[in-house]
């Protein structure tokens, strides 16, 4: 005899206790500290900050610890925390031209003011497992850079190109308030600022795939990496009662300026166009993919046909958020008994009619 199931509460409590135990793993192995995650899993921390839209390395590291290393889950924890924070204003725009660069490469010019700075990069490493790392030894100290004559000045490549009018200028700041997609629902068509917000917090894998698709012909943009730079910028805030900027601190950013071909139109002369990517921390893959997709999403503005997924802003913006995607995909594991029952009833009825009809057809044939 069937008895209605009770005990959901106890089951949930027990599942959570089991989760805590699984998170800790073998108690004989020392527990990870948040500082260890922050320092040694720095790129993972950066990704959680970028997609979590909150610059706080310690909080991101703690979220990763709590989430057992699951990036989307860690992003979720950070976002849910972020949404409860009071907002006292917006910072002044950060000046990436004044960035203290740790890394800066241009694929369009061999040398340029400020130089090419490789910095800490996986590029040109041979991807061979370093078994010496398993021995937990100390690493060799890094070499000190020779000071350059032009050290400290590192103008953006796009600014250099703009001097000759070869690239479209950045649209001037019209002083209009910038939208915030975390506070207002997106109203399509969304302007570029909102699109960039969505891409900046969008899932790295999804944005990467979309960016890649433009390179393979689905909305081709003929891109060149004008520049990628990674480093720290100062964040200033202008309190209303003071009226002058007050430094809040420094944050690490990755910026990508993609330079794209444009043949010109009836109203615009031939010149290069821009795709822009910016992320918290060091994430060149994400910044580059974002810049590709940003440029692809400008298709309509630049009079190009909108035919590919990466050019379709409703497609991109509605699906790039990892939390929205994971929530809706994973909700399929919630009970759907009643809808399934409704479908069962229909399929049974349709099958009964199908077999009744085919029986009568067969009888008629006989």
């Amino acid at each position, binding site marked *: *005899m*069937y008895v*209605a*199931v*009770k*005990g*959901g*509460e106890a*089951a*949930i409590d027990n599942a959570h206790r089991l989760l805590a135990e699984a998170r800790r793993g073998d108690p004989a192995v020392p527990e990870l500290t948040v500082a260890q995650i922050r320092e040694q899993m720095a790129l993972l921390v950066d990704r959680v900050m970028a997609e979590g839209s909150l610059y706080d390395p310690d909080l991101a590291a703690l979220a990763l610890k709590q989430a057992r290393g699951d990036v989307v889950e860690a992003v*979720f924890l950070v*976002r*849910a925390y*972020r*949404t*409860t924070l009071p907002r006292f204003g917006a910072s002044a725009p950060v000046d990436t031209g004044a960035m203290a660069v740790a890394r800066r490469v241009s694929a369009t010019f061999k040398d340029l003011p400020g130089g090419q700075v490789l910095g800490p990069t996986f590029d040109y490493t041979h991807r061979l497992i370093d078994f010496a790392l398993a021995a937990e030894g100390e690493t060799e100290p890094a070499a000190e850079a020779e000071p350059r004559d032009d050290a400290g000045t590192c103008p953006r490549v796009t600014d250099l190109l703009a001097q000759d009018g070869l690239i479209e200028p950045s649209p001037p700041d019209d002083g209009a308030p910038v939208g915030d997609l*975390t*506070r*207002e*629902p*997106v*109203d*399509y*068509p969304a302007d570029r600022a909102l699109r960039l917000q969505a891409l900046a917090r969008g899932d790295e894998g999804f944005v990467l795939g979309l960016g890649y698709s433009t390179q393979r012909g689905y909305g081709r943009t003929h891109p060149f990496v004008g520049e990628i730079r990674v480093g720290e910028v100062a964040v200033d805030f202008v309190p209303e009662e003071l009226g002058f900027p007050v430094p809040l601190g420094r944050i690490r950013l990755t910026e990508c300026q993609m330079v794209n071909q444009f043949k010109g139109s009836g109203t615009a002369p031939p010149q290069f166009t821009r795709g822009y990517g910016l992320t918290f921390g060091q994430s060149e893959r994400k910044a580059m993919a974002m810049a590709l997709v940003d440029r692809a999403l400008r298709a309509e503005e630049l009079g190009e046909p909108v035919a590919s997924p990466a050019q379709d802003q*409703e497609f991109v913006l*509605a699906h790039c958020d990892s*939390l*929205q995607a*994971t*929530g*809706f*995909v*994973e*909700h399929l594991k*919630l*009970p*759907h*008994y*009643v*809808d399934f*029952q*409704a*479908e*069962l*009833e*229909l399929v049974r*009825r*349709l099958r009964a*009619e199908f077999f009744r009809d085919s029986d009568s057809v067969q009888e008629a044939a006989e």
Partner: protein
Amino acid sequence: MSATGTHELFPSPLRGGGRGGGGAEGTTEPRSAPPPPPAPPRKGEERGRTPSEAGYNFAYLDEGTKRMIRRAILKAIAVPGYQVPFASREMPMPYGWGTGGVQVTAAVLGRADVLKVIDQGADDTTNAVSIRRFFARTSGVATTTRTTEATIIQTRHRIPETPLREGQILVYQVPIPEPLRFLEPRETETRQLHALAEYGSMHVKLYEDISRHGHIATTYAYPVEVAGRYVMDPSPTPKFDNPKMDHSPALQLFGAGRERRIYAVPPYTSVRSLDFEDHPFRVQRFEHPCALCGAEGVYLDEMLLDDAGRRMFVCSDTDHCEGRRADGHVGTGEAV
């Protein structure tokens, strides 16, 4: 309806302008429409108050957010069936798991409310338990499993079998609020179709079902027309429940968190399931009564008892089933 009658439809937070919904400093006025005296508690019933979680505002959301949501709700009530965009927040539970319903409930919940949460008709399914606990923790309001005692019922995929009454609010969790979404994926297009009341494509879809299958092959999330104007998704409730929405004395609110939409059916509003003269709308009928309480004309869950195909049909609405059994109704207890 009289002015006081209108007030009765909105428990504390929606009453009176601008006041925080039982915010930390707010005092809760006596309800103008107190719920009927609670029936003596049944055995094993969950009913209690717990102090709210320290560090968070009453019912989790800050008062500014609640006001924003209430404005969207008021607009939704004023334009029945119209999807009002709202600035859905990131909630501490996943999108797709009821964040829209949770935000609507948080916005209308007052300290005097009694909350019931069901998922698939049952109070004890895990996600219903989780959401009920969330509000018990963050607001400390009384919770119940009894439809008759609740002032607010948050639901996923069912409408209780016990008829709702004036003063109650039914909050639906909605995954895809746009009834036209599977016919036209673009929001820019669907908003225009609604503006023009251009619902031909939906009728064609239903017609194609009939020509292909002999029936309208939509069994849940069956589209309805509200107040003779907007076509609305009733959320993925089985179409069995659609008739309960029509002229319901309760206020029905729909929250879609991921899609950032709120819509509403005010009390005593017409809700018509789309159909054709020669193919009138029909609800599912079950061949057997509930095996536990013997109820007929209710929605049933099918339980698989073994691998030999034995199954049993029991009430989907667990509160309704328990109530009937407490009143002495008995089913056959037999598998079919």
